[in-house]
């Protein structure tokens, strides 16, 4: 292997030499090299070890289809596991090591197990390690160590990713001859065009032709230039279309910085970008991948694809060997031979399975061309050294090889067994590729709307036909887009490469590798079939064929053809496995894009949030909201150190402040829906279980909402502003869901109801002043409302001006204390909060969070939907039969469900209070309940549980089977920690049962 003298059309830049490190050793190569070409140029044969047998492997291909050359690139926050050397653009100071080799590339344990390889056939583990089953974890532990390629990086990612949404008329995947031609034709009509190619440079396989065809070179540069100058064309290089979804959503990963040396990467730019392209039309000009011939030891380093050898030669000026044997079953092999002679002065031996191709020109040039020959076996230790070849015959159905073999010395073997069109994207939406006998290839069906394929993916082998096919395809879709189109082009003729039918030598099939990455051999496929794994899907799963990071791009079709032969079926009868995204592996970070970290999901904040932060609140995540959980006070210690109260201490303090003086809470997160129209009352009556006909303006009412299954889904207070105008509140977490639920009923079932719903959750900021001194606080801020308990009774609301801001004040209570909820537009929210704090100073007003709110409401037995209920509680179960009106003219949602046989059972789980016998024992929430100490049969569980500061004891709410009829019974809580705690079933109202506190200080 060596680097040739400069070539006219090479793509390396010899003026820039880059240093790189491979396996800890330093090497040099040029800008424009890939890591693969750089390794080849440096004479490195063995780049990896195989998955199962630890066999030495070299570079097989030159592109994304490479199965062997997996490396670990860089380290730390820049580490890339399982990177493919053939895809990595070399940059200065690049550092890579082999992704395989246990413990090292040089010495692999798995290879040392060679005597056992014959037992390690496909699926051998299903038949072994079985007895006793208990020991499997031990075996598994060791087997796991043997598997996998690179390590997972140990550090978090140093780079970031983003997404971009794109909308275009035409997306062209593939920037080869066909794609460029299609793009140009499309763009000339004025359509917006996006060209996507995974390589660093446009041109695709065409660039291999430049060396031999000036015309190709000429066409390419003029087309490229034209495209680059058109404003309606965008070209994405280094971009892989990895999935094509329904309605032409084309997903593309653009590698924006992977080709830049680590030092020069721009931190402000994403490393990779996912383009989410909606294209009106998609042109698939994805080309094809060559597949190899099969023979024993075909996995030896130095055996590679003919097209790859040609690319290395023409694009990188790397000669993969001085003594090449080229073997093929189609016409394409001769082009490589010609290039080798011309570029490197090397004379290969050419083996063509077929007879009849006119090779006189090559023969005249002194090349040994043997038609009717193929390779049966390769040999060598670190690298191929010899091949044994034989004459082959085709009887119209099958190939056979003559017994007489001949040995040739060589240092590289390049083969071509035909081409696999890249049908992948076309198949992602369920299309099945079609097999062509003439081409010996699966072609895209392209049977989904708004897409077409062009070029070598359609089987074209010469670049002129690809150009023509591209133009033809563009023409077709422009018609669909109703764009003015250039004069009709004609569909080009298929020029056949005359690919011979599949052949797999019969000897040493356990050395013939079909899927190199997964070490699937011809014999494994035989075995699978012998054992009745006959569907190609079973073969895949039993042997792991095509499971690798290359997804069988090179090997699958060979496996299919072999299976067909063994099953005596045609190739299309056997069919392919399913092509799925990703076309090539996609970085997880790029899928996630910017929506990681705090942007993973929106964080919602109330207008008062900054005040809470300033007061040192701890926050609780409720739905998407950040709600103050508690407000720990700083504790001054004797010495310098400062600490803050813990949850328990803070909550005790907050609770007592509310019960004894006054507290303040941010209730802005509750959902609020403005409801207007002449039928609002009827509407509310249908969606809530209780009655709404008589609620007068100025009043509020609590409502319970069920689904049609009769189970509680939400609750909240609704205020009557006028006979045709109400405002509903929903739970914080339920807001969006309930709004959709209500709209759905209105729009589908009750379109005749005259009701308009508007979400006003964000418009209002709500500050609740709670406690016996609440009135004294609010009176300082508002003079146009009479706060006298009689004038403004419980469950009323008033309009007024609070601290100079127009407000709605509601006298509702979730704590049993006197409480005013001040609603003002969001932009005044923080101001009002601060005014309340100021006004409350003299009463030591105490801000409190959700935890204290929970304790206060539990002391009063108020439920929290989603905590005390779980979708399996009816209003009766929740002891809220009082909120159910069965006499409404139109039955409310869920009403019918309440009378089903299971729903009327009297021993259902019902919501009750619990008093632990040990008054200081707080039951863990969630703890299950049983009837007797030794019982295991559960009768319910603890839904809420707290130490009540005002009662000086623990209290809990729970659901208990038939609990409502078992008041006073002792039952037991069985904690996760193994405790059994006796508790008494009690009424769930623990505090102020006489409701004497409701009016506050009198």
């Amino acid at each position, binding site marked *: 292997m060596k680097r040739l003298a400069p070539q006219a059309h090479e793509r390396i830049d010899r003026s820039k030499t880059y240093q790189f490190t491979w396996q800890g050793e330093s090497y040099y190569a040029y800008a424009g090299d890939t890591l693969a070409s750089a390794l080849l140029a440096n004479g490195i044969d063995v780049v990896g070890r195989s998955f199962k047998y630890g066999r030495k492997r070299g570079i097989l291909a030159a592109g994304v289809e490479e199965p062997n050359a997996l490396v670990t690139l860089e380290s730390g926050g820049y580490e890339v596991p399982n990177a493919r050397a053939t895809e990595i653009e070399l940059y200065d100071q690049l550092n890579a090591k082999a992704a395989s080799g246990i413990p090292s590339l040089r010495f692999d344990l798995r290879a040392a197990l060679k005597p056992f390889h014959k037992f390690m056939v496909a699926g051998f583990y299903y038949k072994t390690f079985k007895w006793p089953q208990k020991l499997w974890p031990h075996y598994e532990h060791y087997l796991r160590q043997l598997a996998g390629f690179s390590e997972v990086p140990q550090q978090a990612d140093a780079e970031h990713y983003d997404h971009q949404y794109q909308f275009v008329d035409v997306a062209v995947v593939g920037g080869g001859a066909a794609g460029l031609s299609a793009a140009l034709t499309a763009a000339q009509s004025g359509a917006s065009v996006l060209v996507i190619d995974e390589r660093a440079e446009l041109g695709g396989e065409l660039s291999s032709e430049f060396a031999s065809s000036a015309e190709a070179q000429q066409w390419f540069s003029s087309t490229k230039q034209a495209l680059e100058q058109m404003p309606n064309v965008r070209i994405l290089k280094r971009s892989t279309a990895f999935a094509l*979804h*329904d*309605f*032409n*959503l084309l997903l593309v990963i653009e590698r924006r910085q992977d080709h830049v040396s680590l030092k020069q990467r721009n931190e402000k730019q994403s490393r990779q970008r996912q383009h989410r392209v*909606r294209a009106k039309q998609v042109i698939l000009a994805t080309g094809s991948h060559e597949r190899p011939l099969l023979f024993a030891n075909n996995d030896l380093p130095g055996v590679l694809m003919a097209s790859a050898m040609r690319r290395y030669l023409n694009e990188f000026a790397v000669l993969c060997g001085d003594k090449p044997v080229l073997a093929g079953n189609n016409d394409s092999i001769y082009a490589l031979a010609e290039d080798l002679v011309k570029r490197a002065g090397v004379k290969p031996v050419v083996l063509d399975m077929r007879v009849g191709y006119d090779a006189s020109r090559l023969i005249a040039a002194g090349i040994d061309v043997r038609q009717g020959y193929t390779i049966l076996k390769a040999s060598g230790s670190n690298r191929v050294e010899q091949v044994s070849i034989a004459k082959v015959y085709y009887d119209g159905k099958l190939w056979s090889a003559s017994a007489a073999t001949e040995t040739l010395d060589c240092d590289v073997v390049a083969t071509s067994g035909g081409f696999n069109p890249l049908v992948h994207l076309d198949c992602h*939406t*369920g299309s099945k590729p079609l097999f062509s006998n003439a081409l010996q290839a699966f072609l895209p069906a392209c049977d989904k709307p708004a897409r077409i394929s062009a070029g070598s993916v359609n089987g074209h082998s010469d670049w002129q036909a690809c150009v023509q096919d591209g133009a033809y395809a563009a023409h077709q879709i422009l018609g669909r887009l109703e764009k003015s189109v250039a004069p009709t082009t004609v569909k080009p003729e298929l020029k056949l490469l005359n690919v011979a039918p599949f052949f797999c030598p019969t000897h040493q099939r356990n050395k013939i590798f079909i899927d190199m990455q997964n070490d699937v051999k011809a014999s494994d496929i035989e075995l699978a079939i012998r054992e009745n794994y006959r569907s190609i899907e079973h073969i895949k799963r039993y042997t792991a064929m095509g499971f690798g990071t290359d997804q069988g791009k090179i090997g699958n079709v060979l496996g299919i053809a072999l299976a067909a032969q063994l099953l005596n079926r045609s190739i299309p009868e056997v069919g392919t496995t399913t092509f799925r995204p990703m076309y090539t592996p996609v970085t997880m970070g790029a899928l996630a894009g910017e929506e990681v970290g705090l942007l993973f999901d929106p964080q919602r904040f109330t207008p008062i949030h900054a005040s809470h932060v300033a007061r040192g609140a701890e926050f609780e995540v409720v739905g998407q909201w950040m709600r103050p959980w508690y407000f720990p006070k700083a504790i001054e210690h004797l010495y310098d150190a400062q600490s803050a109260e813990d949850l328990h201490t803070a909550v005790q303090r907050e609770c007592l402040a509310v019960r004894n003086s006054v507290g303040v809470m941010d209730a802005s997160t509750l959902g609020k829906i403005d409801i207007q129209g002449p039928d609002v009352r009827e509407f509310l009556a249908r969606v809530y279980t209780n009655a709404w006909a008589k609620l007068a303006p100025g009043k509020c009412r609590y409502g319970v909402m069920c689904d*049609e*299954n009769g189970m509680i889904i939400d609750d909240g207070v609704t205020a009557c502003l006028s006979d045709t105008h109400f405002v509903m509140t929903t739970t914080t977490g339920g807001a969006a869901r309930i709004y*959709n639920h209500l*709209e*759905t009923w209105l*729009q*589908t*079932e009750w*379109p005749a109801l005259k009701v308009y719903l508007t979400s006003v959750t964000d418009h209002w900021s709500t500050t609740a002043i709670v406690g016996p001194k609440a009135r004294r606080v609010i009176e300082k801020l508002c003079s146009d409302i009479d706060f006298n308990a009689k004038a403004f009774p419980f469950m009323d609301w008033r309009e007024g001006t609070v601290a100079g801001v127009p407000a709605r004040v509601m006298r509702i209570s979730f704590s049993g204390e006197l409480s005013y909820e001040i609603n003002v537009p969001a932009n005044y929210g923080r101001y009002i909060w601060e005014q309340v704090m100021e006004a409350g100073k003299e009463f030591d007003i105490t801000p409190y969070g959700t935890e204290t709110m929970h304790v206060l409401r539990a002391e009063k037995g108020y439920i929290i939907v989603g905590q005390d209920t779980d979708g399996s509680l009816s209003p009766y179960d929740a002891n809220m039969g009082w909120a159910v009106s069965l006499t409404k003219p139109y*039955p409310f949602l869920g*009403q*019918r*469900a309440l009378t*089903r*046989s299971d729903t009327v059972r009297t021993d259902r789980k019902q919501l009750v209070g619990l008093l632990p016998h040990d008054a200081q024992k707080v039951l863990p929430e969630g703890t299950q309940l049983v009837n007797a100490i030794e019982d295991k049969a559960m009768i319910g569980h603890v839904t809420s549980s707290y130490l009540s500061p005002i009662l000086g004891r623990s209290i809990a709410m729970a659901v208990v089977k038939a609990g409502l009829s078992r008041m006073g019974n002792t039952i037991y809580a069985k904690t996760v920690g193994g405790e059994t705690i006796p508790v008494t079933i009690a009424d769930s109202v623990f505090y102020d049962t006489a409701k004497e506190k409701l009016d506050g200080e009198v």
Partner: protein
Amino acid sequence: MFLIRCPYCGEAREEQEFSYAGEAFIQRPPLTCSDEEWGDYLFKRKNIKGVTTEQWLHSAGCRRIFVMERNNVTYEILSIYTFESKRGAA
């Protein structure tokens, strides 16, 4: 990944703007129905393989619910119409 033409907005939008809202035209039985009928109404679905008639809500757009006929095997959208137009026709 659907691209859905909202009949109210009059243009195609990304699937994420919409919420699937279940089978369309399920008849709600009266209070007097049997437990069986209620159970069927609540839970039993046609769950057709092939062309389905279903409700979608343009939740991030105009907030209207409409009807979509969709082939849930090929993921083709066959037609989209409003409830009003259906009611008008009936």
